[in-house]
C-alpha cells in the first residue's frame, strides 16, 4: 500500500516537472529576443541564440529541483510543534543516483561549454580582408570616433550596413567600457593600450553606446548614439564630414 502511494506521489512530481520544463523552455524561446535590445549585428544574433539555447538546456534542471521541492512541500512536510518521527528510510548513500547526477551535470556542462567555445570562435573569427577600422577614444565623459584614412572625428558613430567594423579602442584618463547594446560587443577602453573588437552590422537604424565601466562623476551620462546606414549613405557622410574638417 505504501509502495502504491509513493508511486502515485512521484507521478505528480513527474507531471510538475514536465509542466515546469515546458514553462522554462517557453520563457527561453520567447524571452531573449523580446527582452533584449533589437539585434543589429551578427554578434548580437549569436548572443540571443545562445541565451535561448542555455535557457532551454537549463529548464529541465531547474524544473527538476523545483518539482522535488514542491512535492516535498505538499507531501513530506510535518507541521506543528512536536518533533516528527525519524524518516522511514534513513538513506545515507545512493551511489547510482550520485553517479547519474554527476554524469548528467557533466554532460550538460560540456554541451554548454562546446556551444560557448564554438560561439566564441565565431565572434573572435577573422575580421575579414577589408574591415572598416574605427578608432574609439573614451575620456571623462564622452566618446570620440575617428575613421583612419580620412580626417573625420565624430562624437557619434556612423557605420555602414554589411561591412565588418574593427574597433580600436583606447582611453585618455581612466578606464571606460565601450558597449553597443544592440550589437553584443563590449570591451574596455584602457589608458595606454589599444583593445580590439569587431562586428558586422546587419540592420539599419539607430543604436545607443553606453559606458559600462565605472568612470567617475558623470558615468551615467557617458552615452552617445550611433547609426547604421547603407554603404552609399556612409560614403557620402564620410565625404561630407571630411570636407567640413
Amino acid at each position, binding site marked *: 500500500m505504501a509502495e502504491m502511494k509513493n508511486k502515485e506521489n512521484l507521478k505528480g512530481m513527474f507531471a510538475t516537472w514536465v509542466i515546469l520544463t515546458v514553462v522554462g523552455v517557453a520563457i527561453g524561446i520567447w524571452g531573449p529576443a523580446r527582452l533584449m535590445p533589437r539585434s543589429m549585428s551578427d554578434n548580437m544574433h549569436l548572443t540571443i541564440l545562445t541565451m535561448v539555447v542555455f535557457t532551454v538546456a*537549463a529548464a529541465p534542471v*531547474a524544473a527538476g529541483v523545483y518539482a522535488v521541492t514542491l512535492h516535498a512541500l505538499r507531501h*513530506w512536510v*510535518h507541521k506543528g510543534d512536536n518533533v516528527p518521527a525519524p524518516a522511514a528510510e*534513513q538513506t545515507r548513500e545512493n551511489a547510482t*543516483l550520485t553517479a547519474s547526477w554527476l554524469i548528467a551535470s557533466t554532460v550538460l*556542462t560540456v554541451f554548454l561549454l562546446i556551444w560557448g567555445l564554438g560561439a566564441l570562435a565565431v565572434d573572435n573569427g577573422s575580421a575579414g580582408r577589408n574591415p572598416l577600422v574605427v578608432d574609439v577614444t573614451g575620456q571623462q565623459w564622452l566618446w570620440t570616433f575617428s575613421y583612419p584614412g580620412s580626417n573625420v572625428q565624430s562624437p557619434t558613430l556612423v557605420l555602414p550596413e554589411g561591412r565588418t567594423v574593427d574597433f580600436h579602442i583606447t582611453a585618455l584618463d581612466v578606464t571606460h567600457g565601450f558597449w553597443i547594446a544592440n550589437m553584443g560587443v563590449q570591451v574596455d577602453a584602457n589608458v595606454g593600450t589599444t583593445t580590439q573588437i569587431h562586428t558586422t552590422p546587419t540592420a539599419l537604424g539607430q543604436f545607443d553606446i553606453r559606458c559600462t565601466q565605472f568612470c567617475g562623476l558623470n558615468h551615467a551620462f557617458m552615452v552617445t548614439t550611433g547609426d547604421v546606414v547603407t554603404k552609399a549613405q556612409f560614403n557620402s557622410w564620410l565625404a561630407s564630414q571630411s570636407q567640413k574638417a
Partner: protein
Amino acid sequence: MTSTLEHAAHTSAPEGGGLARRQNFLTAMIGGVVFAWLGWFLAHHFLDSSSRNFSDLVTTSLTIGWIFGFWLGIGALNGPGRWLIGADHTRADDLYYAGENQGRARYWKYCTDHKVVGVQYIVMTAVLLGAGGILAMAIRTELIVPGNHFVNQQVYNGFVAVHGMLMILALIVAVAGPWANFVVPIMCGARDMAFPRLNALSLWTLVGAAGLLLSVLAVGSLTMGWVVLAPIADQAGVGMDFFAMSIIVFTVSTTVAGVNTICTVMTMRTKGMTLARLPIFVWASVIAAALGLYAFPYFSLVEAQTLLDRNFNTSFFVAGGGGTGWLQANLFWLMGHPEVYVILLPAVGALFEIASVMSRKPVFSYRTAIAGMTGLAGLSILVWAHHMFTTGWAPTLGGPFMLTTELISIPTGLFFLVIIGTMWRGNVWMKLPTIWLFGFIFNFIIAGITGIYLSDIPIDNQLHGTMFVTAHFHYVFVGSVLFGAIAALAFWYPKVTGRFLDETMGRISFWLAFIGVQVTFLAMFVSGLRGMPRRYSSYSLIFEHTNFITTIGAYMIMAGMLVLLGAVVRSWSHGEPAGPNPWHANSLEWLVPTPPPLENFDVLPVITEDPYNYREELVRS
C-alpha cells in the same frame, strides 16, 4: 551544571587588576580617536605640506593611529605585552578575559569565550547589514525615477561603493562569524577555540575596520564601485585611503579567524571525533576558512599597493608610470572570486545541517557534500579572469577561463543533490529554519543559472557591466547567502538565548523578503537585459518601469529585515522557552546545557558515531 572552571575560580580573585580590568568598547573608541588624532598631528606637522601626497600621507597616518589606538584601548595588546615583559597571564587573568562572572558587561569587552565572540559577531553582522541596507535603500530611492533628485551623483557614487563593501564584509562574517565561533568548538567537543585571544582579536579588529569603512562616508566618500578599479582610484579623495586601510585591517581579522577555525578543528576534537564523524557544518567552516587564507592576502596586497601608489607614487597601477590597471584587476579578482565561496560555503554547510535535522534523516551522501565543497573551493581559485572577459586583458585566455568557470556548475549542482537527497521522503519539520531553507533552494537555482549565462563570453560581451550582473550576484548574496544565514540564525538562536526566534514574525519577515527578492531582482534582470549598465545614478526613460518595480521590491526586503530584527530583539528576552535541544538533534552543541557554560563541557564526551542517527536520539529535551 557546574564546569570544572568554576571550581577553579574560587582560588582566584577576579576583582582588582588595575586598568586592564576596565577596558571595554568605550576605552577602545577613546584610544582609537586619541591615536588617530596623534597620527594626524604628527603627519600634519612634520611632513612637507607642499607634497602632492600630503593629504594621503596624513590620512594614512591617521588610520594607522586609529587601529593601533583601538587595539590598545580594547586590551588586544595586553597579552603580548605581558608576555614580552616576562609576566604572562595567570589563570585568574585568563578567567577574567574569558568573561567569568561578568554578566552582560563581557559583551563589550575583549572577551576570549568563543560563545561571547559568537554573540558579538551576530551583533556586528547586524550592524554591517543595517548600515549597508540603509545605503541600499538610499540607492534605490535615488533610482526610483530617472534623474538625480534624492542625492547628488558624488554622494550616490560613494553610497554604491560603501554599500558594496559593507555588504561583502557583512556576508563574509554572517555565518562564519557567529556560528564557526559559537557552535563549531562545541560541535568538535572542545572547551574553546584553539587560540581564544586571537578569537577576540579577530572580532575587535573587524570592529576597527568597520569604523574605518564607515568613516569613508564622512570624508568625501569615493567615486567608484566597491572594486575601486585603478586608475580611477587615483582620482578619489582621502576616502580611498580610509577604504584601503579598512580592507587591510579587515584581512588581519579574517586571517586570524581562519587560522583559529582550522587549528581548532584540526587539534581540539574530542576522543572519537574522527573527521568522518564531524558535523558537515564543521567541514564547511574549515574549507571556507582555508579558502579565505588563500584569497584574502591578495586583498590586502592590492589595497596596500593602492596606498603605496597614493602615498609614495609607486605607480603599480598607474599606466603612465609603468604600471597597469589590469594588474589591479587581476589581484582584486584573485581575491574576489574565491571570496564569493568563502561567503557561500558556511551558509551551504549550515543548510545541510538544517536539512538533515529538520527532515529527520542523515545528510544525503556526506562524502559528496565534502567533495562538492572542496571541489568548489579548488575550482574557485582558477576562475578569477571571468570578471575580466570584457577588459581586453589576454583575450586568448578567454576560452580556458570559460572552461573553469562553467565547471563550477558541477560541484554547485552537488549541493542541490545533497539537500534534495536529504529531504527526499523525509519528515520535513516546517519550522522557521526550514522555511528559509526552501527560500534558499528557490533563489539559488536562479542565481546559478544566470551565472552560467555570464560565464559564456558571447553572452558576457553583451551583459557584462549591466544590471543583469548586479541582479545575478544579488540572487547569490541576498537570495541565497542571506537566506542561509537567516536559516542558521533561526536554527541556532535557541542555543544562544534559550528561546525560539518568534515563528510568526519570522514567517512575516520571510514572505516580505522572499517576495521582495523576486520583485527586486527579477525586475533588475529585465533592466539589464534591456541594456541598463550598473552603477548608474540616472537612466533613460526606457528603464523607468523596471527600476520603479525594483525599488518597491527593495523596500519590501528592508521591511522584512526590520521585522526580523524586531523578532531577534524581542525573542531574546520574551521568546518561547526552547530547552537545550529544541530540534532533537544529536550534534554536541545540542547536548550541552543552554546557555552552554564557560568551557562548555564538564567532562569531555567520547564520540562513537556521527550525529545523523535519528533512530536513537541521545537526549530528549
